[in-house]
């Protein structure tokens, strides 16, 4: 295998092609435009299709049509664009369709900014659109992982017939790192797409829909979805433990770019004999709750610290996981500001000195 220096957005685009996704529908939005530009150039070379849609609303619905026919198709966008796709994501979740969405997050709310952020955690992991559904969410922290998780996303989408999202921040999209693409990519078999609308020649017609006016039937569909989410929680939880050991005084929980910064802090404090471990969720839904709890309850752990590029979103899942067994602290910056190792370190020192601030009034 050869290592190539690539920009995150382009590496993600190439990874999708390597996973057999040669149908791409999108609308321009910063900071992920390189994905579409790469696809516009590359897809004709591999017999694929690139459509620049009139809006992200249309993108979501073009994907609906494309994946309903059994082909691997995907889009990439950034926060405001993903908001516009929520309609189609909800319909595809209801109709149990495998679609892959790449969200290169920028700061919000509203038009927000174009710099890296992790402010779409709630939207991504809690449903996002209307109705009772979940999206399987994968969060890379390096470009190699962005490549691997993008390829995995197509597999998991097909395995569960469920919308699957690669949730990365603008830093992952914009930075360059060496990456490797697997030479002979092989996947575990996925269920046959016998539900696809490919024309009913020689078989009974197939209908793909989400409308069920009979509440008994609609509830049944929701129960099927709920079973699927249970299976994901049982079989698909992924995380990385970094320097987690019984000496840890603090358990950090962080994902994506933020987790890499936390690793730097952990390495530095290790030199000063302050032992900290990091549990980095790779799947944000399903969330590694059990694993976090198991580490949090260890006797030496004084505090669980969640660090995010948001004002505190994943921390709610961490709090739920820890179940009040240990104090949960939060540090975050948002709006496109990426916390430096120094400020994370300062906050840790405050925690250890029991000087962390109390809640301020919203009026400032």
């Amino acid at each position, binding site marked *: 295998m050869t290592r190539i220096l690539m920009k995150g957005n382009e590496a993600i685009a190439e990874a999708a092609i390597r996973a057999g996704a040669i*149908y791409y529908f999108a609308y321009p939005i910063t900071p992920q435009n390189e994905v579409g530009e790469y696809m516009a150039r590359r897809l004709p070379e591999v017999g694929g299709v690139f*459509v620049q849609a009139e809006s992200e609303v249309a993108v979501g619905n073009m994907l*609906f049509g*494309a994946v309903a026919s059994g082909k691997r198709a995907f889009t990439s966008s950034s926060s405001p664009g993903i908001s516009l796709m929520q309609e189609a994501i909800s319909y595809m979740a209801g109709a149990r369709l495998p679609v892959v969405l790449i969200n290169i997050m920028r700061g919000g709310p509203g038009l927000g900014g174009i710099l890296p952020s992790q402010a779409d955690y709630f939207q991504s992991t809690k449903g996002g659109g209307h109705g009772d559904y979940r999206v399987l969410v994968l969060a890379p922290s390096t470009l190699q992982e962005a490549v691997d998780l993008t390829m995995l996303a197509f597999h998991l989408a097909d395995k569960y017939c469920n919308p699957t999202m690669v949730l990365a921040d603008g830093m992952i999209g914009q930075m360059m790192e060496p990456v490797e693409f697997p030479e002979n990519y092989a996947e575990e078999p996925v269920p046959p797409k016998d539900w696809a609308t490919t024309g009913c020649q020689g078989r009974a017609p197939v209908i793909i829909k989400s409308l069920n006016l009979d509440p008994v039937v609609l509830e049944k569909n929701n129960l099927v979805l709920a079973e699927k989410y249970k299976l994901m929680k049982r079989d698909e939880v992924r995380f990385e433990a970094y320097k987690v050991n019984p000496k840890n005084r603090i358990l950090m929980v962080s994902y994506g770019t933020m987790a890499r910064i936390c690793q730097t802090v952990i390495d530095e404090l290790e030199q000063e004999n302050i032992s900290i471990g990091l549990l980095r969720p790779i799947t944000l839904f399903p969330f590694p709750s059990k694993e976090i709890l198991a580490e949090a309850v260890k006797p030496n752990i004084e505090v669980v610290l969640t660090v995010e590029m948001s004002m505190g979103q994943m921390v709610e899942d961490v709090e739920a996981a820890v179940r009040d067994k240990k104090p949960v602290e939060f540090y975050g910056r948002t709006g496109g500001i990426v916390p430096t190792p120094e400020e994370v370190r300062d906050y840790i020192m405050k925690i250890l000195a029991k000087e962390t601030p109390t809640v301020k009034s919203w009026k400032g």
Partner: protein
Amino acid sequence: MNESTHAIFTRPQSFRDVVTHYCPGCTHGIIHRLVAEVLDEFGIRGRTVGVGPVGCGVFIYNYFQTDFLEAPHGRAPALATGLKRVRPELIVFTYQGDGDLASIGTAEIIHAANRGEKFTTIFVNNAIYGMTGGQMAPTTMPGQITTTSPRGRNVEECGYPIRMAELLSTLRTPAYIERVAVHTPQNIIRAKKAIRKAFQYQIDNKCFSLVEVLSTCPTNWGLTPNESLNWLEKTMQPYYPLGVFKTPDTEEQK
């Protein structure tokens, strides 16, 4: 049936042997049948996928013997785009009402037509929102009373009804666009011809095709079925003239 008799009128194969949910006097059933007949005549049922709307036509998949997708409101042209682009061998049609196509889905239909997507749209215009109980549509006639225009559509506030066939015909990209009606047998025959032509253009992979069909809604118009046919001719047809608005063959190819 004994040997000396034979059926001269049967249900199209593309149509299921079921009773539709449409109100008495509604012409959706006629339009469905015309589409089904055309699919039979071209022998394309087995490679056709329909994309249904939200509105009275939402249950169309219960009546057709073809694969079907149910689109979010107004988005059928986007689904059809995705489907046809990844499986160009399929015959794809959308079936949409006026609330679906001319209000919430205007962006999707205009851009699908402008990209020249090779699918067919059957656009049923009955000047009202039927399924939700008779609210004003962008196609509601001036002065027409609906549940959300109880004093009649006020064009000072709501503008004039949108003529979608004309609007789409201003696009440069080649397309086939015709408006027909189904309130008399002669018009039904013409409508059938237009729908046939629309599918023919798609089979030939030539262009986007759209047939606007003026249709009735006796229930929400508050008229009898016969009065409705009359109202369509006297009130709608003068504002929504029938005819071919655009063909790819007569296009100026500058």
